[in-house]
């Protein structure tokens, strides 16, 4: 029994040379394939393609170069047994990874967390845009081009002597004042001052707001204070009538912001705002209302009056 095996080695399985070279050629071809596939931009599928090719290559190496295909069943069992436990290892880790986000979104699946963050950011931005649009709308509802022209006339007659024709506080009467009148072209001041603050100073004067006592109060300007604020804003290049998408003013000089230089976009809004004002004043149906926004507001304003039903009827007319 002992000698029988040694004479002829029973495990020797000599493969023909062409199998070796054939396998080698296949391995090189698959290497070329996997490199070129990686340039194809398959996205998330790239990893699966690469792993499939790698598995085929690994199978060739194990099966032919390592002779496992012709080896004993027991060696095959050991090899595939280790692969089995490797799979168990991988599967449980993947279950862990893919379910983390469900338990703790903070520290879990990065991709999911990122998507959530992106969604939250988008929602936040939408909210901001809405808020900006709303505030712009309110102002544009109040301040029309005509209003701004009137405000300019008021400014020329009442303010210009101190605040200067260009809002720089260089008016002839303001030169001697201490502290000097506000420079409206100071963008920093424009930025940190709210519309409400400006309105307060106009209405209550310097004494009422803790500023220079030489600034007189103008309580009579209350009906048109929004237009006055808008006019003061225009010195800083801020257009309160324009649409919300124009974040940066296209012109820095106050002249460009005077009603003469108004853009068509601003003009287009004027009739709508006019229509609404008229509708609210006269309590009549807004027959010539141009925008749905104006339509929507009319019934609300008239909700208690018997004409409310009438107000709603002609509303769809312009859309036809």
């Amino acid at each position, binding site marked *: 029994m002992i000698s029988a095996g040694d004479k002829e080695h029973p495990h020797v399985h000599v493969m023909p040379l062409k199998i070796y070279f054939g396998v080698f050629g296949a391995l090189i071809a698959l290497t070329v394939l996997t490199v070129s596939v990686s340039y194809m931009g398959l996205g998330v599928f790239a990893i699966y393609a690469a792993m499939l090719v790698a598995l085929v290559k690994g199978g060739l190496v194990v099966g032919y*170069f390592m002779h496992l295909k012709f080896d004993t069943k*027991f*060696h095959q069992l050991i*090899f595939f047994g280790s692969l089995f436990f490797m799979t168990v290892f991988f599967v449980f880790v993947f279950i862990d*990874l*893919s379910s983390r986000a469900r338990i703790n979104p903070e520290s879990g699946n990065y991709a999911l967390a990122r998507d959530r963050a992106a969604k939250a950011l988008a929602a936040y931005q939408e909210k901001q845009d809405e808020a900006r649009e709303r505030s712009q709308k309110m102002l544009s509802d109040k301040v029309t081009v005509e209003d701004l022209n009137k405000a300019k006339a008021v400014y020329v007659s009442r303010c210009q002597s101190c605040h200067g024709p260009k809002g720089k506080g260089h008016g002839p009467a303001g030169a001697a004042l201490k502290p000097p009148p506000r420079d409206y072209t100071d963008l920093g001041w424009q930025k940190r001052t709210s519309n409400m603050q400006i309105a307060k100073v106009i209405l209550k004067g310097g004494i009422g707001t803790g500023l220079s006592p030489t600034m007189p109060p103008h309580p009579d300007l209350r009906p048109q204070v929004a237009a006055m604020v808008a006019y003061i804003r225009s010195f800083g290049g801020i257009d309160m009538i324009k649409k919300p998408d124009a974040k940066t003013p296209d012109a820095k000089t106050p002249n460009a912001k005077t009603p003469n230089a108004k853009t068509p976009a601003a003009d287009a809004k004027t009739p709508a705002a006019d229509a609404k004002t008229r509708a609210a004043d006269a309590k009549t149906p807004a027959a010539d209302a141009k925008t749905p926004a104006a339509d929507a507001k009319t019934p609300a304003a008239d909700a208690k009056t018997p004409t409310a039903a009438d107000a709603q009827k002609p509303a769809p007319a312009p859309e036809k």
Partner: protein
Amino acid sequence: MSSHDPNHPEHLQHHFHSSIQQEASSKLGMWVFLAQELLFFSGAFVAYAAIRYFYPDTMLSSHEHLSIPMGAFNTVVLLTSSLTMALAVRAAQVNAVKSLRRLLIWTAIFACVFMVVKYFEYTHKFHDGLFPGNHFNGVGLLSKEQQKYVTHTFRLKAPREREQVFYRFKPGYAVSEDAIAAALQASKMPALIVSRANEQLKVSKDQLITWMAHNGANDQLDLWGSTAGANTFSVLYKGKPHVFFGIYFAMTGLHGLHVLIGIFIIIWVYRRAGGRYLFWKPARESEFSPAYYTPVENVGLYWHLVDLIWIFLFPLLYLVK
């Protein structure tokens, strides 16, 4: 137990009944070892999967710093060495002693070529400062001009600021954020320029002073105080490259260690096949014959496993897109 006894050939160790039993035991041991190796490497692969899962951007952005031609070349080198190894085993089977020696030497040469390429890849990464973990500084990603003026790079220990790398330039060298951004852009490493030290940097002066004291740079403290380090930049690399290079060096390093060990055991088998690994050593008779070539076969199995690991490492590390 005479060596002339045909029932007890020289290679048969006394605790085995027969050559068959000896060979079967030896190969069984080898396969168990290989199974263990697979499980060992699977740990690294699972770590890779977890990192890829947590930081998908990491893989996409950092692999730009690996050279696909070099990786592909090394793949071909390793596959070729696998072929020569398989042919060497076949040569032992058919008792072609001369070609057995020649093929073993070629296998060792290819293994060395692999290590040389790896050496160039590694030194390039070291030069660029692409180190794992806290050692990452990415200094080689700045422009050549800037590199000349960098005196220190450092990272802070605070967890939130860990991602930032601080570059400190020689006093008087004005570095604009744009210049740094352009250099980093050219290096393909996506990064954010956080700020200069004297601007809205989230680093407190105390932290900087602690760092300076720790690094024995007290003489420069005044500079921090007065000009507040206008010549310091912090850069936030997007996609956690320090994590990527952690797993990169762990996986390729372990694999490289296996290649290195492979070179030595191939030379050992070559010597046992009667080869002269040093030219002044006398040639010997080959110990191997078709009846006994288990060492050649087992070294071959080991070497193919090293190749097998690389077949998976190459696409995962180099080809992720």
